[in-house]
């Protein structure tokens, strides 16, 4: 069973005007109250995971990879806000430096500190599992059948008069549709990895790296492939 990560996990995003960059992410914010904490600890102990929206994953992955449009990112910031007070902050620098901040008022309550630290660690772990691009169940190859149907439909429309004169030809329609659909699916599956590799290279240092809009577009395609 899964639970939505929203509203516990949010990205601290700043809208930028003017372009080229549309939004700038400053870090990740975890927001909890007492009831949330107990609920999430119970979920964690049951082995349940959090679900994230596609939009969140896109923005999160972009935050990890890029720093104001450049690759790579310098450091990642995770702030835990409990009952409206910032109590824990973790900064993971990509130079290998990790800085953990604890607010002094939390120290007299070691059990509360342990619970909050546990949840923060769990949140960060959940976020890290969202980073790799996964093979989607209905990814690129799901275009195969709509393309096949469109092709057959157009052929039927163009050859309508012939089909009406030779009704036996109608038997070929589902056969052609099946063969075309299967063939296109196989072809698109074969092309998915080279396309993904090409897109990734373009997003990291190629043509898409020149402009934030293209980069966002490339990341979106990578996510849905």
């Amino acid at each position, binding site marked *: 069973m899964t639970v939505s990560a929203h509203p516990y996990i949010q990205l*601290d995003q700043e809208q930028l005007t003017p372009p080229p960059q549309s939004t700038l992410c*400053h*870090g990740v*914010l975890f927001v909890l109250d007492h009831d949330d904490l107990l609920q999430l600890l119970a979920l964690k102990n049951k082995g349940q995971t959090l679900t994230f929206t596609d939009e969140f994953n896109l923005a999160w992955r972009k935050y*990890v990879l890029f*720093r104001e449009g*450049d*690759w*790579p*990112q*310098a*450091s*990642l*910031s995770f*702030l835990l*806000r409990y009952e409206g007070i*910032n109590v*824990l*902050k973790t*900064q*993971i*620098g*990509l*130079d*290998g*430096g*990790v*800085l*953990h*901040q*604890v*607010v*002094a008022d939390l*120290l*007299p309550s*070691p059990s509360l*500190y*342990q619970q909050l*630290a546990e949840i923060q*660690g769990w949140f*960060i*772990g959940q976020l*890290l*599992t969202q*980073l*790799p691009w996964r093979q989607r169940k209905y990814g690129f190859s799901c275009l195969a059948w709509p393309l096949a149907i469109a092709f057959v439909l157009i052929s039927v429309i163009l050859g309508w008069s012939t089909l009406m004169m030779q009704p036996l030809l109608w038997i070929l329609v589902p056969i052609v549709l099946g063969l075309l659909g299967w063939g296109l699916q*196989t072809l698109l599956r*074969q*092309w998915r*990895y*080279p*396309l*993904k*590799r*090409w897109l*990734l*290279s373009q997003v*990291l*240092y*190629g043509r898409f790296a020149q402009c934030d809009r293209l980069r966002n577009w490339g990341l979106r395609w990578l996510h849905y492939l």
Partner: protein
Amino acid sequence: MNRSAPEAKSPQLQPAAMDPFIQALNQVFLDASTLEVSTMVVDAIDGQRFIPQEVYQDLYYLREDTLSQQHYSPDLQAAYGNLRSQLARQYHTLLREPTHPLYHGENSGPLPPLPNPTGDAQDQRQIQNLLGDRQFLCCLRKLGELKIALDQRKRQHQQAKQPLPEGIIYAKTILQLDGTIANTYTEALMSHPHCTTILQAHQHNIQTSEQQWQGLLRFFISLIQGTFKRQPKPSSQTSKARPSLPRASLVKPQ
């Protein structure tokens, strides 16, 4: 026999475009050999956003002449001055690195001081170069957090007229790939009323930081594999296993 479809033709990659990418990758994996975990106790976490230009400016003006004008106590002056020194040291490290774009040649004279944020065009350019350097930014961000904590301590000290408490980073552990583990604790930790809690917190931080750092590294390695490695064809798999990139593993502290 199943024949795989021909791969899509990729556009020719410009070598020049890959250079900064490869350089940045080199740096990320060079840094992967050491993990430094610090545990800091602060009075409040204000959650303000990291604006590199502002933080650089704040740290730049922690010069001796500026600090002495503020009539801070000697301890506080030393603490602030230490932050600026660390920033200057990081700057000089970059200037001494022959492969770095900011390399200051050996025959170009002594190493220059930190560029002035209100200085001339050359200073401004140098600052922009620095703020585009990942290593410098990591250092800047960390020092920025320490300065915020020092500012809080300063306010407390001024209000309560008590001696400035020592130490902000109470515990630090450095783990290296060769198995070396170095633990550092401030003296103030031993007399802290919540010493046990802080030590337990630091132990927990080490474990989680190691897992999180490995998770990030794994993602970057998969990124490289995704960019450079061809997907193996199912019909042409050989009996020999493909060599894979080594996983960075850190020794767990005892």
